């Protein structure tokens, strides 16, 4: 057991830390378009310095970083409060999926523009009638020569309004059992047949969208992982969504928690700082402990991946646990605010509302508990 960083890991961290300090572009502007342009510039800057896609092989423009270095990267970026990269879905999910299942040609075509933020990606999995039950998607693709013609509807598609490519799961064989009849396409969003309509979230912003797809065209060569193999490829994307983000998420929870402690110290409640209220203290302490568990479990998960090649049981718990921590943290912030919780006067109001999605996006908590029960504990399946 050695919970310290090796000299080379420390060097990696220090180099990144220094770079982030020297190049931090300041506060993100308000408004979707301005914020997006800002994030795109930031990602270009990251890429130019070799800090985008750090875990990707060097021959595809990555840095070939180890798992630990990747974890350090995610921690440091959050710790520095660096802006989000514009192409989060491409970097965290699309690229790794292409690396895992794409042909050499596809890798050469798609990876570079993901890193440079030239081509933004979105994830077209969910549909109005298919959320948790992803394998039931109805969007249909029919082959016409070298092309597929696609018709259907997608929903909750984050950043679709900025995207060039959509990771689209569609049904290519309606006679096959539901998991077997799917294929995974890269769909060009720049066509009339794809209409994007923003959906306003409970926070008032519109990160996600509806997609109306009416006979859109996709060249056959844009299938990833082969016709009929869409389920396996989609699972790869989801695993990356849940695992890759774990490190950034646990650090963002730690940072939010430190801010919350500050808030508790500076808020007066009943004639004393809220931080001196014994109940608030207990809850803050509990959150500090849970956040520590998130960090330790994330590292234990990495150790298991390095040893066994697959994530250990701890890993699959991370996303679920993180969503609970994130939600309780913002709930406590509202409690600390007291009557001011009725006012929408600082970013805690936004955080409180945004956190409600944490247990839904990227797989609901109920689905994650099913996965833990069936795949980790080996309990009988529900059906």
């Amino acid at each position: 057991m050695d919970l310290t960083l090796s000299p080379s890991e420390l060097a990696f961290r220090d180099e990144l830390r220094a770079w982030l300090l020297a190049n931090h572009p300041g506060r993100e502007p308000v408004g979707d378009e301005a914020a997006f342009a800002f994030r795109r510039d930031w990602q270009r800057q990251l890429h130019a310095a070799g800090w985008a896609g750090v875990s990707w092989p060097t021959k595809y423009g990555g840095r070939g970083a180890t798992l630990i270095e990747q974890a350090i990267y995610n921690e440091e970026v959050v710790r520095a409060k660096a802006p989000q990269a514009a192409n989060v879905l491409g970097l965290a999910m699309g690229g790794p999926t292409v690396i895992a299942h794409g042909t050499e040609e596809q890798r050469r075509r798609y990876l570079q523009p993901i890193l440079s933020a030239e081509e933004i990606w979105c994830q077209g999995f969910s549909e109005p009638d298919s959320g948790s039950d992803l394998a039931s998607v109805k969007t249909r693709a029919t082959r016409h020569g070298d092309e597929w013609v696609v018709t259907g509807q997608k929903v909750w598609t984050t950043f679709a309004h900025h995207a060039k490519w959509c990771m689209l799961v569609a049904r290519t064989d309606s006679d096959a059992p539901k998991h077997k009849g799917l294929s995974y396409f890269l769909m060009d969003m720049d066509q009339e047949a794809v209409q994007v309509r923003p959906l306003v979230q409970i926070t008032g912003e519109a990160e996600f969208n509806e997609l109306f797809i009416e006979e859109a065209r996709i060249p056959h060569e844009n299938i990833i992982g082969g016709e009929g193999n869409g389920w396996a490829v989609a699972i790869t994307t989801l695993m990356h969504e849940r695992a890759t983000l774990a490190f950034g998420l646990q650090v963002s929870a730690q940072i939010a928690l430190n801010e919350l402690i500050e808030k508790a110290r500076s808020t007066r409640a009943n004639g004393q700082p809220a931080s001196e209220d014994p109940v608030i203290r207990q809850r803050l302490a509990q959150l500090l402990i849970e956040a520590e568990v998130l960090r330790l479990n994330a590292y234990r998960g990495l150790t298991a991946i390095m040893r066994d090649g697959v994530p250990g049981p701890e890993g699959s718990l991370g996303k679920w646990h993180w969503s609970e921590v994130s939600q309780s943290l913002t709930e406590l912030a509202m409690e600390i605010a007291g009557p001011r919780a009725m006012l929408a006067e600082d970013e805690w109001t936004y955080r409180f509302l945004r956190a409600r999605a944490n247990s839904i996006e990227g797989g609901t908590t109920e689905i994650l508990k099913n996965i833990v029960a069936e795949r980790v504990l080996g309990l009988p399946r529900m059906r």
Partner: protein
Amino acid sequence: MNFDFNDDQRAIKRTAHDFLTARYPAATVRALAGDDRGFTDEQWNELAELGWTGLVVPEAEGGLGLGAVELVVIQEELGYALAPTPFFSSVAATLLLVAAGTEAQRERWLGPLASGEARGTIALWDEHGAWSPDQSEVEASGDTLTATKIAVADAAAADVLIVAAADGRHYLVEAADPGVRIEPERSLDPTRKLFKVALDGVAADSLALEPARIAHAYQTIVTALAAEIVGVAQHAMEMAVSYAGDRKQFDRPIGAYQAVSHRCSQMLLEVEGARSLAYWAGWALDHEPDAAARAASMAKAYASDAGFRVTASAMQVHGGIGFTWEHDLHFFLKRAEANAHAFGDARWHRDRVAELSGV
């Protein structure tokens, strides 16, 4: 950055697991739980032969000189086996003596404690005292001590008592002193015997006033206890998962119902969380002492809650059979709940965490 145990630690874990599960099958645990003494000389001697009694004693003083991580490994397995043994009480007393024993005390006691010839325990809680483990009001008068301590674990098996007193002081009292009276108490957890210890003008031999070293010893003690809870909870979870797969109602295994399966998933979340914290705290005690106080309190607070919740939840999964004396689950619940209150409960340790985190 690597969370895996090294080869030696892995070997200790394997030996401990195999040895303890072989020596303490459920029937043995049950028999010892019903027995007044609660362990046999043969069982004790075997632990001593494995070197465990000398684990935390420096090599120069007759022990193995191993660290907190090794203790954590053994404690987790003792918890898993639910082994009734005065081992932990004796190690706890030994840790305090190693930390702050005077030269004479070390010379007299560390050798026999390490070899297992002698056993010790800590007398912590005042009879009418506070909830805090560090708030004793006992004071010596001159070099004698008169006090009553409750819930002293394994006192009848001990040769030497370390008595906690006011202002962080500790005194060594020999169990053979004619002023020592030890009476069994009824304990929640029958796998660990508790006693009331009345001291009437006994010879009190002060340990050195070494607050930092004593604090480190207590951090090791609570980390070891947290690790024991991890083992207890792990075992209860395994029982629940196995039962949920076998037991059928309404024509299907109850584990196919989400009200049951999600309960089990929740158990895993808490067991793994408690395990991560206990391992981290053990590591910090050995390698990063500045982080150890916070890590140990985090580990004990989380494990105290998780231990009860997991064992209680396992009981719910078992339905009526889990509530019977005949079923083994209640021993797990009782050990977890008693451990939760030993050496500071979740609330006390959370308060420490808040303080140490600048809240």
